[in-house]
């Protein structure tokens, strides 16, 4: 649990600008697709979580826009785009 708290604190160090709507969405009806479980492991920001009923949920706040989930899960289960111009993470060091 401490790792997850640590991660939230770490993401809190980054500058994020709010977007009108989430730029990545789990496609309706795909919440239990086995491909989504990969995202739980690969997301460096830990934004995918598997619930007890097997559904995977995505919280978009803290997304680093790295692209790993798009490659691991594919576009059949994820609707994936970049945030709109000027929104999302803004790295100060990179």
């Amino acid at each position, binding site marked *: 649990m401490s*790792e997850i708290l*640590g*991660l939230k604190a*770490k*993401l809190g*160090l*980054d500058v994020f*600008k709010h977007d009108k709507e989430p730029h990545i969405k789990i496609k309706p009806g795909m919440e239990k697709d086995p491909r989504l479980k*990969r995202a*739980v*492991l*690969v*997301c*460096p*920001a*830990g934004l995918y979580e598997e619930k007890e009923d097997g559904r995977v949920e995505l919280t978009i706040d803290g997304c*680093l*826009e*790295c*692209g*790993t989930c*798009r*490659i*691991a899960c*594919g*576009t059949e289960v994820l609707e994936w*785009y*970049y*945030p*709109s*111009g*000027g929104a*999302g*993470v*803004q*790295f*100060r*060091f*990179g």
Partner: protein
Amino acid sequence: MEEKFDAIIVGAGLAGLSAAYTLAREGLEVLLLERGDYPGAKNVTGGRIYLNPIRELFPDLWKKAPFERHISQEGVSIMAGERSLNLSYRGEELEQEPYQSYSILRAKFDRWLSKQAERKGAMLVSRSRVDDLIIENGRVEGVYAGGDELRSQVVIACDGVLSLMAEKAGLRKPGSARQYGVGFKEVIELDSALINERFGLEGDEGAARLYMGEVTKGKFGGGFLYTNKESISLGIVVGIHDLMEGAPAIQAPVLLDEFKQRPEIARLIKGGETVEYSAHVIPEGGLKALTKLYGEGILVAGDAAGFSLNIGVTVRGMEYAMASGYYAAQAVIQAKAREDFSAASLASYESMLNESFVMQDFKNFSAAPEALDNHRIYTHYPELLGNIMRDMYSIPPGSKERLYPTAKKYLGTGELWAMFKDLRKVMKI
């Protein structure tokens, strides 16, 4: 009549900025679109840039470039569970100008490079996401960005590793997980005097270290550390396929936390304060994973084309990005002179790349991805070497065994045969 640019460049990373700088230098009308607040806002590196292959392409650029430190000390660390074996290298040539490589932070560097491109006459629009390409009669005619329709003779897709633009142009398909790694890192602020003391550096000298083995729990990849002026970049790169397959199932961020807690690392970053956490996908498929580089009215450069190369001892992308941006610009300059922006005319981009270090490196190292995709490299050998070193240094209460038999007991016939087979693969790199 609406304005038509010579070139619209999608993405102000190193490829896009290099292309914009080169085109503007020749007086072409260039529009550079960047979705971040400023160039560099979305860009991540490990990172270190090597200048020798690209020095001549941008002769006026280097003197004032805001790099961090020149790398004067190289290190590789092979990590087993409870021990590690370190190899460090210092050489006179690393301490002499012109320096071979520098540590770099992209938000700072890219922003500076964009100023240089603007000074040459390129038009930069930040906070502008390109939504789609304008394709008419099978030819790319410009882009749609934030409701605007922007037209140009040619579009250069420098939109990074996922390159949605190259996908839309039909030049690539979404990649497979085996061809990509994910890198994630922390920038940890630390007083420069303390950095110098801990790494044995003076002035602007810098250290680069790679870590392999336990760092990635046996998965394809490794850890890295670069010293910046007043911070340390510390991170991990792992193959996405290995990470998503589990065995062992471990979440990416946990790998970095555990890496930081290793005693070898903890003492280097002690007292430092993490100021940023970032992540990015990296193309690691080598030659086979390169996209088609050009089409009717479009070119692809940088990570978008797959130009990043992991050969084990080095992982390089930024020089390929800058060089491919430069050659894309040269192809556009030639196409403009011919007034022909067809695929046949833009094919000169690929010919120039073929003659340059870019494609020559990719061809020379075409066997690297396969040779490095060997789990024994990331688990078995680090443990084996660690155990041999432990026994070599160990002085038991009684008498000590002779050195050769000490090592030999780990190297039975089966082991030697497996090593021989692995070595044959690694020799192809």
